[in-house]
């Protein structure tokens, strides 16, 4: 049975691109486009991992990551932040709230995401 990951991304185009890449690796991908939908999805059906954008319509990925990592029911779920924000203070902020990885959305994003999931034991 394929593992299921939750992709938190409010851009349909980017979500589709990432989803297609992960489907190639036999992962089941659920997509949430807001923080509210993310929290509902995580509690309804805890994923093996969460891929988390930073810029969301109703919150930030930093706040969402902090919330998930401070909840005993969801703290164990690995979170990989995937974002256009690639400055030093952005990465520090993401890792400080408990993300297991911080990946810039550049030409190598999908490759790095797959490798991160592999190192986390998801793939």
């Amino acid at each position, binding site marked *: 049975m394929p593992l299921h990951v939750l992709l938190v991304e409010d851009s349909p185009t980017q979500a589709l691109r990432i989803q297609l890449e992960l489907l190639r690796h036999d992962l089941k991908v659920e997509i949430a486009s807001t923080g509210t939908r993310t929290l509902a999805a995580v509690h309804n059906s805890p994923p093996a991992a969460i891929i988390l954008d930073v810029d969301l319509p109703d919150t930030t990925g930093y706040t969402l990551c902090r919330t998930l990592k401070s909840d005993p029911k969801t703290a164990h779920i690995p979170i990989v932040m995937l974002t256009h924000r*690639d*400055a*030093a*203070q952005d*990465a*520090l902020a993401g*890792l400080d709230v408990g993300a*297991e*990885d*911080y*990946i*810039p959305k*550049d*030409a*190598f994003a999908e490759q*790095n995401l797959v*490798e*991160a999931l592999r*190192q*986390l034991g998801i793939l």
Partner: protein
Amino acid sequence: MENALDVVTMRQEVRQLARDLGLGLIPQAKISTAVSTIARALITAQGSTTLSLQADERAARPALNITWPLSSNGTPEHLAHLEQVIQFDSTRSLVDEASLISDSHGALLTLRMWLNR
């Protein structure tokens, strides 16, 4: 490196080197982000930049060393300016050791990530 594409390519090379040397995801993210932040700032400030990567696995404390020669007149004021340009406070927080030293001939930025963690 001379442009954004060079920065992205170098960031990826540093990330992969860190992974090949056995560093985990968080150190990979940290060192690659530090390199890209500094590189981008230096390209903006001076048009291009060059760095050296060296994995010293045989040292008493094995490390990934990144060294960056920078132009400097050696004055404390210029050193302070360089620190501001490369966002040294933020970038040094991403690595295990960072130093920026200068004399009348120039400056040398060194970033270090321990390999045996």
